[in-house]
């Protein structure tokens, strides 16, 4: 973890450059398991965001009170409490989505991304900065899930958010809404990201060194 970061870095870091799912490979289990439609992905993303935000708030607020030896257990208990709340909220507001997500809502407790942020950031920083970090990481998680859900729903059902967009003649690739589709989708998304990174690196290499320096300074 970098020693000194500005508040805006706290916020933006998790969104893309250190995206929890696509770069750090955390929280993969929900990112693959419930992303067969866009609606499910968004519900899971928002529920996780809620849990992460509230847990970061509590952990940062009580960091002086929590004994170092039992900190992990304490974090897990805080997270489990908010997951129980999120579970009840989802059941009351959107019962169908709650049914579709099933046991995976309870599994937010063991999302390593949430525990990771508490241990790496919230327990060492002030409340506002912990909240900024939680917001950034949470948005990054939602973006990754949205990306997965979008690709899988469009290819697997030929629709987006339930609206058919690929026409009646499109033969859905059922495999993308089944488990193998999850692995393949994230595999190909990572492939595309790697290609993008390499292209960027090669371009900056082929440029005149001075031009790059000017560009960075500007």
């Amino acid at each position, binding site marked *: 973890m970098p020693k000194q970061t500005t508040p805006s870095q706290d916020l933006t870091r998790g969104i893309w450059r250190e995206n929890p799912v696509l770069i750090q490979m955390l929280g993969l289990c929900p990112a693959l*398991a419930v992303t067969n439609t866009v609606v499910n992905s968004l519900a899971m993303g928002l529920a996780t965001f809620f849990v992460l935000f509230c847990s970061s708030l509590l952990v940062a607020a009580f960091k002086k009170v929590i004994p170092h030896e039992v900190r992990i*257990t304490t974090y897990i208990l805080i997270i489990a409490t908010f997951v129980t709340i999120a579970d009840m909220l989802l059941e009351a507001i959107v019962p169908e989505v709650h049914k579709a997500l099933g046991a995976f809502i309870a599994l937010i407790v063991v999302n390593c991304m949430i525990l990771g942020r508490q241990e790496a950031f919230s327990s060492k920083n002030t409340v506002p900065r912990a909240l900024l970090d939680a917001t950034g990481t949470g948005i990054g998680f939602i973006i990754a899930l949205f990306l997965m859900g979008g690709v899988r729903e469009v290819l697997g059902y030929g629709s987006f958010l339930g609206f058919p967009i690929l026409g009646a003649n499109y033969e859905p690739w059922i495999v993308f809404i089944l*488990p193998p589709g999850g692995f393949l989708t994230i595999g190909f998304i990572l*492939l595309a990201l790697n290609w993008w990174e390499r292209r960027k690196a090669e371009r900056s290499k082929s440029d005149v060194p001075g031009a790059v320096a000017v560009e960075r300074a500007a």
Partner: protein
Amino acid sequence: MGNVAWIFISAMVVNNFTLAYFLGLCPFMGVSGRVDTALKMGAANIFVLTVASVCAWFLNTFILPYAPFLRLISFIVVIASTVQITEMAIKKLSPALFRALGIYLPLITTNCAILFMAISQTNRGYNFVEGLFFAFGAGAGLTLALVLMASIREDLVFAKVPAIAKGNAIVFIIAGILSLAFMGFAGLLSA
């Protein structure tokens, strides 16, 4: 006994925890580099799953009927303690293995497979013996997936992988193909 055998086979191959439910992906990606480490990680998982299954059954039968809202919290505490005990035992019995598993050993706590097993055991209303076979089958399935992946990755070192697919991308694509292969077992259950 037929029922118990089906629970075992179903948890192990048909609904393989890793390849059909995406559970335990962290160790699946992290310690699947070598076959012997993968085997030991699988064994540690089987142990924790079995103990957690017994504890979950105990909690469900004697305590949770009086306080259903505590289910998630009590399960996670039990799992965390079980992992802690396993960790201490391995550290004492085999320091080399302890080092090989590294951070992934305490992370069994946040391995979704364990919690998922405890919750679905409850939801499906398994009795004590059924729960044990379910946990054992789930652990065997995790180990199978880990070992298969590790064997492939050991050979992958010698394969020519395109530069952009190096690292996690190729591992996920291989996992997708493995998962596709495991879907072939789906026909077993309806038979």
